[in-house]
């Protein structure tokens, strides 16, 4: 099967700007993008640099943008993406600087990983043998432990594109793995640090990380898990938590969102007035300001009953 590859090329030592190079390779059935690139590197053009090792989606080395989406080259079959176009485009991961060609500098990725305290911190006396914990509690962590730290989620994260300080989906999925571990003795302390700015409340739930993750870690869902854990453990004094609480209260009692009240609740008084004034004026000019006097729906009591039945 003949396959066309259009590959990003950049050697900062010799090139002024990045360029693209086209290759054609012949691959067997079940051929992957990685096999295509290896064919290029081994036989046609040895100047192409990339990272790769296991060929079976477990080492996490070969994450790159394939047809614009971050994926593992070894897990991406040509046959899977044929419908996306005749030529396959290959680019380095995003949100990380390029070292050469498809190789990126992952230092910021590892540094963020380190800031979430990515190791078990048990408390109290050591058990005589292993810790006795339920299989379910361990398998809940297995979802996050599936992470092979390939960087695909970070590469496609839309928050990181605009805010470099965001801890990002990979580090936060790792954070979940420890916050939810019954053997850890610092859950509260961990959650306290994760609700700080740049943490769990900065995710915009765009779902890109869930789509990019080749190991079904669903980082965004792990972030949502931690939001629930944070609120449940009483960490309600953050903008994100107040936003959730205000949203839920408004709908519970009036059946409708009171946008002014939500802004007051989220940002706190009188700060909301200053911070949101420019935004409010813009919306006023576009005649898109919500009603200043909030009126609930006529059947609000029924909504309240639903909330009560759900116990929230």
């Amino acid at each position, binding site marked *: 099967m003949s396959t066309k590859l259009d590959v990003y090329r950049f*050697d*900062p*030592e*010799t090139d002024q700007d990045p360029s693209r190079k086209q290759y054609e390779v012949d691959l*067997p*059935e*079940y051929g*992957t993008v990685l*096999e295509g690139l*290896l064919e290029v*590197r*081994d*036989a046609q*053009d*040895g*100047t192409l*640099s*990339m*990272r*790769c*090792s*296991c*060929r*079976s*989606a*477990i*080492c*996490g*080395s070969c994450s790159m943008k394939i047809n614009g989406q971050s994926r593992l080259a070894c*897990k991406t*079959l040509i046959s899977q993406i044929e419908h996306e176009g005749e030529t396959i485009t290959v680019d380095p991961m995003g949100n990380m600087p390029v*070292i*050469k060609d498809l*190789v990126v*500098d*992952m230092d910021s990725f590892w540094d963020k*990983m*380190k800031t979430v305290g*990515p*190791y*078990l911190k*048990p408390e109290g006396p*050591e*058990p005589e*043998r*292993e*810790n*006795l*914990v*339920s*299989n379910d509690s*361990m*398998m809940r*962590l*297995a979802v996050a*432990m*599936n992470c*092979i*730290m390939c960087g695909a989620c970070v590469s496609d994260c839309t928050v990181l594109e605009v805010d470099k300080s965001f801890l990002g989906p990979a580090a936060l999925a790792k954070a979940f793995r420890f916050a939810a*571990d019954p053997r850890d003795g610092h859950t509260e302390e961990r959650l306290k640090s994760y609700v700080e700015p740049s943490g769990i409340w900065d995710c915009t739930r765009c779902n890109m990380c869930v789509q990019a993750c080749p190991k079904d870690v669903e980082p965004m869902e792990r972030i949502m898990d931690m939001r629930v854990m944070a609120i449940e453990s009483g960490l309600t004094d953050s903008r994100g938590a107040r936003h959730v609480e205000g949203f839920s209260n408004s709908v519970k009692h009036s059946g409708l969102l009171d946008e002014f009240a939500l802004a007051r609740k989220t940002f706190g008084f009188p700060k909301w007035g200053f911070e949101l004034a420019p935004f409010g004026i813009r919306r006023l000019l576009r005649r898109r300001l919500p009603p200043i006097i909030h009126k609930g729906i006529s059947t609000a009591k029924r909504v309240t009953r639903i909330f009560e039945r759900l116990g929230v």
Partner: protein
Amino acid sequence: MRQHDVIVIGGGLAGMRAAQQAQAMGADVAMISKIFPTRSHSAAAQGGINAAVGVGDSWEDHAYDTVKGSDYLGDQDAIEVLCEEGPADIIALERMGVIFNRNGEGQIDMRAFGGATNVRTCYVADQTGQVILHVMWEQLLKSGLTVYSERFVTELLQEDGRISGCVALEIPTGRIEIFQTRAIVLATGGIGQVYYPTTNGLAVTGDGLALAYRAGASLMDMEMIQHHPTTLKANGVLITEGARGEGAYLLNSVGERFMENYAPNMKELASRDVVSRAETMEVRAGRAVDGDCVLLDLRHLGRDLVMTKLTQIFELARDYAGTNVLEEPLPIRPGHHYIMGGIKTDVDGRTWDPSGQGRWKGAEGLFAAGETANVSVHGGNRLGGNSLLDTVVFGRRSGAGAVEYARSVGWASVNENAAINGLESRIKDIFSRPSDGLRAATLRRQMGTAMNDGIAVFRNEEGMQKTLATIRAIKERLPEVSVHNKGRLFNTDLLSVLELDYMLDVAESVGMGAVTRKESRGAHAREDFPDRNDEDWLKHIVVARSEDGQAEVGFLPVTMTKWEPIARTY
């Protein structure tokens, strides 16, 4: 020049465990790894890690199974250490954070594995190696270990036969770095890429074995190469033994569970060498599927079990074979997987004979652990689940051994300029060749194919000699190999030439061991010598460099403690 008391080369499980132990003992230790540590091939270990931690099991039973699995070539003193100390290491891993699957009491659960008389394989679904590797990495972050990542070690430095340091190429920048040290632990993993195809990753090129060999250490039982019974035809990727441990069947083309004829008691869970041979014999008898495959049948295990305990297998089969294992059996075949042989060490990881009697050739100050080393606990055939245990037990012991040794000696001197110039001129020489010359990948494929043709599941004199001759012919052509890439940054083209150089030394030593052993034992199944011959061949074969730089074969006795060799049936 950088200085550390102990340097660990290799960032997989054995290396991390060695570094952790050395650091815990208060030594100034650093790790050098060709790839980022979590990219190491330990991550690919799927099925589990053995130890007698369960009620009703004993380390003696584990030891006996291992001795029998090794076809009596394993050193029994080393096997006793492995099995007796193993349970404590498993408990230690759990406390560090490994999320082992649990039984109803919340204890570590175990699954059945090949060649074991008891259920003793602890596991995390089918990603055991990955989880343990990542947890060990977490521990290294916690302790703040110095890690030099993406550095390719090209040479071990010595003064008067004693290790003094090493030379490394920093891959992202192309800079040469010199390290001075008192002791080195080599933990660079297996030799997978010497074979084609293989289950092993592209980074697994056996560099460590060649570095040790060139520094004067002995390579032992190199002919003992494991072919895993279940690998995918398309790309050689591994399908865990855990599948059979959970109850999967092997079927031939007529739908027969053929293992009943080869191993009436253990059936699919006989030792790997036995199962791989049985599969090959079915193929030769004309009962193959897809040319040279048989079938792995998981259908009766049910969706729930497969989707919770064998998830990775479900995905690999779907992605690389287009097979839904819940609905149809999966074509598989034996494929290169592991080397039981390696750098000869004692139970503390020392590559040299500490008794001073020079019973084998070694390099003072050089330690080795994991697949790189041969302690020897696997002998002629490794049991599934014993390799991860080998890495944590002997990784720990070699880390401790290295610290003790480092404390007993001063610094040996390093000629920094000479070391830098040595590698620089080697690179300059490669760069000076015309760019359109021979590709390293071409020779690498020829070598891998020759190895798999002649030194695989079944062997004979003619085939092995042919392979050995091919390897030596390829070695002759090494100076013709050139590169397209003459830049400094992340030059994997250059790396492929340097790696090939080491791989050929390793391939030759495998061939030399193979033609020397004139019997069938463990994974070394000879058609021309079909029986085990304890009288003449119950001994280790070592390959070491002679004074004039040639590879030379020697022998070492097998250490027996309490298990006399008997016929091996499953």
